């Protein structure tokens, strides 16, 4: 309940533009099979390269597939992929992060050094290497991206967990004789989960972009499954004759990422409840305060 409340509060405080874009992305993804006007994979070579018409609002691609339907279906591919990646990455990350934050000491040291190495290598390089070892497939792509993303999740969860553990009510619980298991599962874990969920949504844009990039390189979503990056690379040879098929998926993807980036900026600017250390919060307050006096004068 606590985590749900924190999440709802955070959504209400978000910038409208982000809520609108991300909301549209999620709704399109959820209801894609019911709202696509045509079968996204149905080919009609008579329609190939056709421009926009009343029947096909955004025209058709080089195989005569309805572009609008494919764009909407791609939102679902992307949404499912992002959710799976974030679920896997955060499952690993939260467990490792809360254990490090709860235990502290050498457990913390060892786990965080592992996270350091993981974070030193850029996520695209990690996921490409994992795909290179295990081969190209949908589940390998999810696994590769999850392996690339868990370290950042672990770091955030640890920061949140340390913060929660330092709160007075934790002290009180220990004094009251609550068992370590009870403290961990009933109090620490849910509190961490709520805060990390906010980060997870802000991170979703980067994951969507990574899925599109891998698909663009031919190592992620395989044709004929519609996906924005894959649609773009598919249409690239026909750039001169039909640039619309390149521009439309690119624009849709950019729009989704813009939404998530606005969200990310809001998180970074502390407009969303953010688990910061007291020192950082104080520093930020000082900056904001000096700022306010400057604009007033």
């Amino acid at each position, binding site marked *: 309940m606590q985590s749900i409340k924190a999440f709802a509060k955070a959504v209400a405080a978000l910038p409208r533009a982000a809520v609108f874009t991300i909301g549209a992305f999620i709704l399109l993804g959820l209801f894609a099979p019911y709202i696509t006007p045509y079968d996204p994979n149905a080919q009609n070579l008579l329609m190939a390269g056709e421009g926009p018409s009343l029947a096909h609002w955004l025209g058709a691609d080089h195989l005569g597939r309805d572009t609008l339907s494919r764009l909407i279906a791609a939102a679902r591919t992307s949404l499912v992929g992002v959710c799976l990646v974030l679920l896997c990455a955060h499952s690993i990350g939260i467990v490792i992060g809360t254990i490090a934050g709860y235990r502290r000491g050498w457990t913390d040291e060892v786990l965080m050094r592992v996270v350091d190495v993981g974070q030193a290598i*850029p996520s695209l390089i990690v996921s490409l*290497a994992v795909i290179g070892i295990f081969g190209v497939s949908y589940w390998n792509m999810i696994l590769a991206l999850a392996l690339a993303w868990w370290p950042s999740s672990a770091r955030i969860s640890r920061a949140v967990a340390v913060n929660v553990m330092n709160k007075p009510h934790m002290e009180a619980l220990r004094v009251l004789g609550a068992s370590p298991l009870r403290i961990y599962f009933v109090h620490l874990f849910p509190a961490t989960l709520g805060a990390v969920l906010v980060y997870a949504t802000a991170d979703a844009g980067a994951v969507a972009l990574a899925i599109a*990039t891998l698909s663009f*390189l031919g190592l992620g979503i395989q044709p004929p499954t519609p996906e924005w990056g894959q649609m773009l690379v598919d249409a690239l040879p026909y750039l001169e004759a039909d640039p619309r098929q390149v521009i439309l998926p690119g624009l849709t993807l950019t729009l989704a990422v813009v939404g998530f980036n606005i969200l990310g900026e809001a998180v970074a600017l502390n407009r969303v409840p953010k688990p910061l250390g007291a020192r950082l919060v104080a520093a930020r307050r000082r*900056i904001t305060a000096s700022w306010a006096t400057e604009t007033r004068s």
Partner: protein
Amino acid sequence: MLVFIAKRARNAVLLLFLASVLCFTLVVSAPGNVAILIAELRTPTATKEDIAKVEEELGLNKPLLERYGFWLQGALKGNLGISYKTGEDVGAALRSRLSVTATLVAGGAVVAFVLSLLVGFIGALWAHRMPDYIMRGIALLGASTPSFFVGALLVYAFSVNWHLLPTFGFSGPASWVLPWLTLGFLPAAVLSRVVRVGFEDAMAKPYVLTARSKGLSQTRILFRDALPNIAPTYLNALGTQIGTMVVGAVVVEPLFAWQGLGDLFLAGVRFRDFMVVQACLLVFITFFVILNVVVDIGITLTDPRLRRQRS
């Protein structure tokens, strides 16, 4: 200062060692027997004896620790093994492609540097007015647009539509322009925000108030007082972004059909050529670790406060 550099170098070597272990384990833990793979590559109807011969040849039947030592020794000498698929020397392939990626990233860095300062300065000079908001919008859009889409749009605009620049592949020095722009676009957007936010923070400091009370002009305060204070933060971010550009090269190279490191890495990934993947991974990680050390030393040199603290 020397102590600081020595300490950073020691940490870097330690991290590189860990990374080399990681690279090695990644390939060892790969599913499938490598010896069978190679034996079947040589003769499709490989017998048990053929496989044993391959194992003997590559030292695959030795204990893991010995294999690691053997591999590391070779890697330090630039001998990164032989491609499982093509049979060519991986080290030589890496060296021949290095210059393409290096030129690509260097050009991209120049583009990012110039564009970010330009956009950041415009934002700072007209703070909280129309030019600032326009630049902020451009930066947000730039930071959100995938590089392959930027590249495709640039090719469409400059090559297909206006016939100003060559499209894909290499045909003279003009071919560099579009890949450079594509690669530098996203870092430019991110760095322009660093400049803009840096000015915002610096302009709220007491020394700016002093400068203002002395009657100095806004432009002078921005460039003479605030700018040196942003330099360390900016250099730090620039270092990170150069790292981002090396990763970006992996996407930009196939888009423009260039044969660089990224292209080699992708080919290795696509055909599951473990030796190539491993070698490229090692080169990338080495680069990132060295880049981090260089950036750290660079910041210390540009920031007098840190210089004093660390010497």
